[in-house]
């Protein structure tokens, strides 16, 4: 026999052995790779089984159509046997509007709905600055949302037309000059204030004029007396405007050109309407205040520095509930008699301060993470303090702080449920208590909390996903 070998036929490729393929490979590698992991896997499967065994029937026996909890139980007993348990979502079906709006009059539901839809239009230029495509998609979503919900809430046809034209106008603006959309963002707070609380259309307009006066005085005075004194003069002028000129002007304008919608008192607000009003206002004002506090804490000017440190440490050292009690009780003793300072406004101010103090420390961490060279390079190019901060320092410091900032925002939003302690109707405790006090739903326990928790989860998870998107978008260091 010769030792030589000559292949006459080439081998076709074969599939890999069954243990190295698809699901089996995945199982072997991820679940059963070592004996210890086999034990852990079996234990985990057992735990999941037990959880499902106790919870799954409850979900599967859900009842959506019933008049009361006892009726729910009867239906469950009739369909699944006398010992079966079942969720009673009929309560949500009957009371969902209270979870969303509190005691806001149903005929006016279109107002918070419109404000909520426009909120996203106002956020759009902040969330997706200058990105035509994302802006268009978001505004399209707002339009669809408003078309549907305004129709369902039986909004007056004039409102319907105005809202649709407004959003269409913004869509057109985005196609031409996406940067200009920020003007709507600036007007949005006044518009929403008027939509939610109602009353004369002139009160938000005249109040906004205070800001215009602040800016006008600042612009006129800053070449003469310098930036900081001019800002001070502007604030004084605006406060004088709000204290002494605001109300008479509103009355005058209202008597000359009356236009108003029904006023809604703060104690009728509740549920997620309240949580979102407090949360969104708190989030949008706490960030700029937090930035100023963080910069103040690093300032060379001793008084600015001490004030910032004192504010931050005081607010952080006190529980939020203490501040809320301060808002609801103490402020009334300190304010001049006869001032009617709205409870929601007071709570918003203190929640904002609370979040701002935390944000200040988060942002200080971001500032500390920047190399000194960045400050020096900005200085060496002749940029003044505010330009260096705005163009060089803050974009980088805020970028590294995004995860912590969004955590603070999520915390703030969830903390809005604490307003229950000062008698406001938050979705978790306030509304649930009211629902459970009803004789029909007495004894219902899991369902309202699951419902409210699910909505909170959706909103907070959304914020979290957006922050991850933002981090990816801003990643330019290529490390």
């Amino acid at each position, binding site marked *: 026999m010769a030792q030589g070998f000559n292949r006459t036929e080439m081998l076709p490729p074969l599939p890999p052995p069954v243990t190295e393929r698809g699901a089996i490979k995945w199982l072997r590698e991820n679940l059963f790779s070592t004996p210890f992991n086999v034990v852990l896997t079996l234990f985990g499967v057992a735990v999941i089984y037990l959880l499902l065994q106790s919870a799954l029937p409850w979900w599967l026996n859900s009842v959506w159509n019933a008049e009361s909890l006892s009726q729910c139980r009867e239906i469950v007993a009739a369909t699944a046997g006398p010992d079966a348990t079942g969720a009673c979502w009929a309560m949500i079906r009957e009371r969902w509007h209270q979870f969303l709006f509190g005691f806001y009059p149903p005929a006016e539901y279109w107002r918070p709905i419109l404000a909520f839809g426009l909120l996203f239009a106002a956020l759009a230029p902040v969330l997706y600055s200058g990105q035509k495509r994302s802006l268009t998609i978001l505004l399209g979503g707002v339009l669809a949302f408003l078309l549907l919900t305004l129709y369902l809430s039986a909004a007056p046809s004039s409102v319907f037309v105005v809202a649709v034209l407004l959003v269409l106008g913004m869509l057109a603006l985005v196609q031409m000059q996406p940067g200009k959309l920020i003007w709507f963002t600036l007007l949005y707070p006044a518009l929403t204030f008027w939509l939610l609380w109602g009353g004369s259309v002139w009160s938000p307009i005249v109040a906004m004029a205070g800001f215009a006066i602040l800016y006008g005085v600042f612009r006129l005075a800053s070449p003469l007396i310098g930036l900081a004194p001019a800002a001070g003069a502007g604030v004084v002028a605006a406060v004088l405007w709000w204290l002494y000129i605001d109300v008479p002007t509103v009355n005058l304008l209202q008597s000359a050109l009356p236009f108003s919608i029904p006023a809604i008192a703060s104690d009728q607000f509740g549920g997620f309407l309240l949580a979102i009003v407090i949360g969104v206002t708190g989030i949008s004002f706490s960030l700029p205040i937090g930035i100023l506090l963080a910069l103040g804490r690093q300032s060379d000017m001793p008084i600015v520095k001490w004030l910032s440190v004192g504010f931050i440490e005081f607010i952080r050292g006190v529980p939020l509930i203490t501040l809320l009690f301060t808002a609801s009780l103490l402020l009334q003793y300190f304010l001049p008699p006869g001032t009617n300072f709205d409870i929601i406004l007071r709570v918003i101010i203190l929640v904002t301060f609370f979040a701002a103090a935390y944000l200040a420390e988060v942002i200080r961490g971001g500032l500390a993470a920047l190399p000194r060279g960045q400050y020096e390079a900005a200085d*060496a*190019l002749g940029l003044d303090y505010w330009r260096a901060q705005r163009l060089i320092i803050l974009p980088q410091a805020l970028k590294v702080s995004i995860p912590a900032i969004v955590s603070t925002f999520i915390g703030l939003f969830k903390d809005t449920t604490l307003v229950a302690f000062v008698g406001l109707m938050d979705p978790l405790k306030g509304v649930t208590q009211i629902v459970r006090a009803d004789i029909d739903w007495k004894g219902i326990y899991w369902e309202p909390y699951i419902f409210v928790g699910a909505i909170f989860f959706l909103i907070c998870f959304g914020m979290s996903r957006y922050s991850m998107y933002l981090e990816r978008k801003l990643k*330019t260091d290529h490390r």
Partner: protein
Amino acid sequence: MAEAAQMQISDEVAIQISGMNKWYGQFHVLRDINMTVQRGERIVICGPSGSGKSTLIRCINRLEEHQQGQIIVDGTELTNDLKNIDKVRSEVGMVFQHFNLFPHLTILENLTLAPIWVRKVPKREAEETAMYFLEKVKIPEQANKYPGQLSGGQQQRVAIARSLCMKPRIMLFDEPTSALDPEMIKEVLDTMIQLAQEGMTMICVTHEMGFAQAVANRVIFMDQGQIVEQNEPKEFFNNPKSDRTKLFLSQILGH
């Protein structure tokens, strides 16, 4: 070295430092500094680490504050007056050891930022200037990348271009090649030599003695916060006067 002789030095005074002292707390870091820089001069400052050479040039654009004496840059005295400081800083370019580019901006944005916000140049014009200087430092193709995507040598050339976009009358270099890999030092030095040949007033803290010999018209040796010796390069390297200078030169040129 023939090129160095051709470069013009005018009688106009660019920087005048007289009787300047600086302390860090108790530590006397700069002691009785007196120097005059003529427009068009290329000065190399060398010395052992901790001798105060970086601190000295950082005083010239007020990144560091001096406590005694006078610094006059282009006829403007540096005091606590912020207007004067900003004026001097916009006239004086600075290049750092660690480049200090802005990592969140593209190369082009790095270059146009200060002209747009400090000099109020229209955006398009600032971009044209930026591209002109990027071509000069031979990396126009990197304009839309971020600093993190460039090599060290490229980043330092961008940093030089960024300073030049402000059309400075004086350039300060603070150890511009110390953080670079050896093969990248040459590309940065070439850029600096080119700048010197165009008549820029330059003060350069560096240990690149070859650069000093090729370009400088004066070498200053510092030790313990004071100017120990200064001379034209040929004299300085071939015939140092003080023992400290001799020791330093033997250490730095010894191998």
